[in-house]
């Protein structure tokens, strides 16, 4: 068997920039260099903008022998490598007099002020500069000092490349290589002031990961205490355990991610529309008449229902902007999606496939998901039922305990089905449109509609509420497929839902706890707030479907729910449901990579 690590570390050159990251935070180095992830924030974009001028043209550096004859050399954006140390560096500027070269590196920020008030360089920058010097030396130049130019204050800091710095740098190179070979992501920094300005913070989730690790650790130690009080292994209903909670209290979870992603989904629902693009603006036309313009910059996804044409140019621009296009049938069946090349972090997917083969792992995760779903169903009944049915609530509570005892996925499926039956039996009690204002309407003289729910049916849905639920689950499966793909996991390989051709099993797994919270709740508000009324339904064969107008109303209800801010029970900060789906999916990735032991299912309070 060829292991990826064997190939990678053998003759791969380590870039100087990555060593800078390693000194800043080893975890950042691991995510960027080993997992191949990158994200921009305003700091990195500004740095890139500054460098675009420096990098506009790259000069050829004469060899050291040629350089001796020259008076002075200014070479910009030169890439050099060192075989001896296995390093590669891109040098912003080299100032050389004969064969004595001085690398100059441009940095966006300000220099460090030392205790005595003089200017100094930040550690990551010093190491990066030393790598540049080592690379220059191997290419025949003499190099005794380097210069760091800090843009913010426009000041230069000179660094002497002495033996101590070289030794320090080589030790760091060795440590970085050890980390690459170890294939184990380092733990996040604890409460570090570096995190808020790090561009990878929403991928790394430093505080959330630490919190989950600490939580499970202290939970387990309590459970195994001989003779000690047994703590229910439920993540959210026990509150903070009192005894071992010091580590948690000392490091509260900071909200380092934005609570909303302000980009919005676009739903294309009008049959026969034609979508083209001109300069970053989508042009939506109906029979050559322009009906709406939408900026790419405003979008996070494009959903297409039925027969709507997209030009290749429009698809190309959407892919470049990393906006997925999702296709549904006219009836709302989720067909598939087009997305850009996407993430290359194959290592995560490898871990996903490995874990999917472990029955123990699948069962453990499935239990968490089902338990979360049942508890959320119960909460929804308690919150919305006209007269919360005490018996059903008790029963659902008992079923969450049953979940813990389940020994196979099949058994779990039975418990889940039982819970669903009880829950849907009482679903009707959450619908609060009086029969007076929504009198059943005659349609073609034979069909009568009313918002009256008996039981869940599908394929096809045979009454208005089932039609809404089916469409809603389809939308949620879509959103989690997008979340799974954007995190870098394979949406088609699940743990609870077994793989089947064309089924986004991972998305279906992840959506279990969110079904009641997002879809059922959106259906209830669509009906109760009359965003969808009884006249928005039609009969097609033996199925009940929504009219184009009714669908618009439901999309609005669904997206309103997705945009709503909710407090995360574990981390205590507020995020929108849409953002939450991404956070939860990233936490699953953290568990797959072995960083946290138990997937923290989202349960609302």
């Amino acid at each position, binding site marked *: 068997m060829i292991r990826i690590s064997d190939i990678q570390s053998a003759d791969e050159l380590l870039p100087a920039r990555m060593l800078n990251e390693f000194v800043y935070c080893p975890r950042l180095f691991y995510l960027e260099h080993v997992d191949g992830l990158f994200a921009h924030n305003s700091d990195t974009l500004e740095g890139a903008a500054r460098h675009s001028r420096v990098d506009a043209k790259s000069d050829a550096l004469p060899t050291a022998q040629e350089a001796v004859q020259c008076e002075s050399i200014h070479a910009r954006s030169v890439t050099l490598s060192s075989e001896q140390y296995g390093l590669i560096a891109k040098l912003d500027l080299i100032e050389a007099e004969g064969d004595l070269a001085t690398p100059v590196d441009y940095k966006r920020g300000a220099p460090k002020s030392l205790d005595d008030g003089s200017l100094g360089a930040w550690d990551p920058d010093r190491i990066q500069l030393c790598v540049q010097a080592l690379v220059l030396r191997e290419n025949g130049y003499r190099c005794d000092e380097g210069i760091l130019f800090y843009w913010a204050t426009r000041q230069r800091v000179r660094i002497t490349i002495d033996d101590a710095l070289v030794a320090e740098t080589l030790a760091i190179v060795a440590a970085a290589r050890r980390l690459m070979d170890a294939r184990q992501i380092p733990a996040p920094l604890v409460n570090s002031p570096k995190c808020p300005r790090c561009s990878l913070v929403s991928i790394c989730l430093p505080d959330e990961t630490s919190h989950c690790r600490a939580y499970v650790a202290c939970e387990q130690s309590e459970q195994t205490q001989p003779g000690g009080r047994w703590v229910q292994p439920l993540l959210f209903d026990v509150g903070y355990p009192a005894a071992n909670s010091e580590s948690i209290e000392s490091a509260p979870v900071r909200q380092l991610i934005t609570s909303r992603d*302000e980009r919005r989904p676009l739903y294309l629902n009008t049959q026969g529309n034609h979508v083209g693009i001109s300069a970053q603006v989508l042009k939506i036309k109906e029979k050559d008449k322009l009906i*709406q313009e939408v*900026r790419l910059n405003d979008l996070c996804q494009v959903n297409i229902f039925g027969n709507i044409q997209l030009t290749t140019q429009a698809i190309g621009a959407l892919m470049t902007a990393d906006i997925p296009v999702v296709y549904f049938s006219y009836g709302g069946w989720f067909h598939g999606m087009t997305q850009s090349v996407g993430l290359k972090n194959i290592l995560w997917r490898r871990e996903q496939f490995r874990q999917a083969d472990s029955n123990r792992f699948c069962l453990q995760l499935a239990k968490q998901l089902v338990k979360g779903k049942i508890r959320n169903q119960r909460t929804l009944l308690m919150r919305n039922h006209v007269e919360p049915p005490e018996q059903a609530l008790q029963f659902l509570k008992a079923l969450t305990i049953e979940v813990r005892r389940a020994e196979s996925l099949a058994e779990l499926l039975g418990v889940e089905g039982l819970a669903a039956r009880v829950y849907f039996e009482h679903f009707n009690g959450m619908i609060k449109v009086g029969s007076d204002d929504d009198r059943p309407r005659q349609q073609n003289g034979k069909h009568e509609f009313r918002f009256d729910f008996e039981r869940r049916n599908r394929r096809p849905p045979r009454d208005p509420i089932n039609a809404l639920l089916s469409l809603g689950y389809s939308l949620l499966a879509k959103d989690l497929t997008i979340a799974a793909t954007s995190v870098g996991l394979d949406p088609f390989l699940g743990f609870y839902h077994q793989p089947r051709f064309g089924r986004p099993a991972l998305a279906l797994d992840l959506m279990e706890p969110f079904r009641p919270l997002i879809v059922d709740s959106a259906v209830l508000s669509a009906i109760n707030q009359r965003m969808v009324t009884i006249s928005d339904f039609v009969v097609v064969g033996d199925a009940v479907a929504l009219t184009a107008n009714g669908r618009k109303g439901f999309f609005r209800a669904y997206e309103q729910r997705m945009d709503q801010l909710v407090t995360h029970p574990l981390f205590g900060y507020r995020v929108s449901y849409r953002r939450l789906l991404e956070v939860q999916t990233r936490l699953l990735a953290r568990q797959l990579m072995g960083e946290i032991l138990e997937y923290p299912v989202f349960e609302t309070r």
Partner: protein
Amino acid sequence: MRSSFLVCYDICDDKRLRQVFKTLRGWGDHLQYSVFECQLTPADLITLRGQLKAIIHQDEDQVLFINLGPSEGRGDRVIEALGQPYCRMDSPCLIV
């Protein structure tokens, strides 16, 4: 977190004017001649500034960025219209 910006420009050359207009159309709503309203994150602002900088001539043209504060919850408070109404679209999704 996005902030609302009024972006106003005065460009001396027709070709550059069209380029600036075309660029800004990708970032915000065209309110009036030479005035756009854009909702920008800090990262967006840097990218947009870079794009416009590459088009304009520093010694002849001018682009002003007027920060109206965070987009969320601002409503229509800071902009008052006389004559033609000013309205701001604010929904969680776009449906066509």
